């Protein structure tokens, strides 16, 4: 019984993790500029990755696998926001200015119909 509950919990975690990854991908493809895309990817990667790895840790064998997965979870949870911040700062100092609604509409009106 408890084993059944465990695998249901794992399945839920993995499925929701996949959902977050999907959101990250969609955000990466659809959002208007670099900073907005970073929003989608950093969060969804960190949250989705941690959720999936937690789910996997629940069903993995006990022989060293689970502890290693915990180490990986810690690595993802630390590295994902740091990499996101480093890239955002790089773009900011390289002179990228964030897209805003006004600039987006201005660009649209300049486009030939």
């Amino acid at each position, binding site marked *: 019984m408890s084993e059944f509950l465990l695998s249901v919990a794992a399945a839920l975690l993995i499925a929701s993790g996949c959902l977050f990854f999907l959101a990250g991908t969609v955000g990466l493809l659809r959002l208007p500029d670099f900073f907005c895309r970073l929003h989608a990817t950093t969060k969804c990667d960190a949250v989705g990755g941690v959720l999936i790895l937690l789910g996997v840790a629940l069903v993995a064998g006990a022989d060293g696998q689970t502890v290693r997965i915990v180490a990986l979870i810690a690595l993802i949870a630390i590295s994902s926001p740091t990499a996101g*911040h*480093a890239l955002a700062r790089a773009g900011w100092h390289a002179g990228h200015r964030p897209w805003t609604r006004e600039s987006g509409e201005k660009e649209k009106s300049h486009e030939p119909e």
Partner: protein
Amino acid sequence: MRNALALVVVIVLAGLMMAGVSQLPPPGSPDGAVHRHVAAHYIDGGKEAAGAPNLVTAVLLNYRALDTYGEVVVIFAALLAVLAVGLAGHSRGPQRGADELPVSPVVDLVIRLLAPFIALFALFMILEGHVLPGGGFQGGVVLGALMILLGLVLGPRRLRRMLPTPALFWTRSVALLAFALVAVAGLALAGWLFALPEQYWLRELIIVGLELAIGIGAAFALVGFYLSLEADRHR
């Protein structure tokens, strides 16, 4: 026209490759062609001949040790070439000195926190590489990556002070020479290159020593690349 031709060639080659892959036996299947002839001999004899539980390491350090040695020499030669070009060349791009944008405190702190663990992981790969996957070269690369990260945090100048050029040079050379020494010792003692002695602990020691030599050689070669690419900016 030439583009179209190239596309056709690529598509044909890709199709051939896919067809080939689809004919491969499922991964890990024991009756695949690769598992029946030479490999069987390696698997039977590898453990005694090389004394390394990880078969890949056994092959790399025994049957193909000369090959591995050649690879290490190639990296070393590449480094010499880069050093030669780097010393003659001059840097383009903006020359900035002390007024350069400081590294982000977030990146700084995270690298400082992670660095000891990365170092331990790299040494784990080097020292236990003959039991688990990994090995000298991979561990050395991770160690090199760690040093590049440290260069980011501490600045290349401080990294260079910690690892002065002569020390780098001598360590790399000694690592290379140690490898050669093991080969020659095998030739002198047992009659063929890279022969390993019978005693278990001595064999283990030599294998670990070899891995360490490869790892440190690779790591310091990478640091050499990095420092020579950074060098001109701070002269």
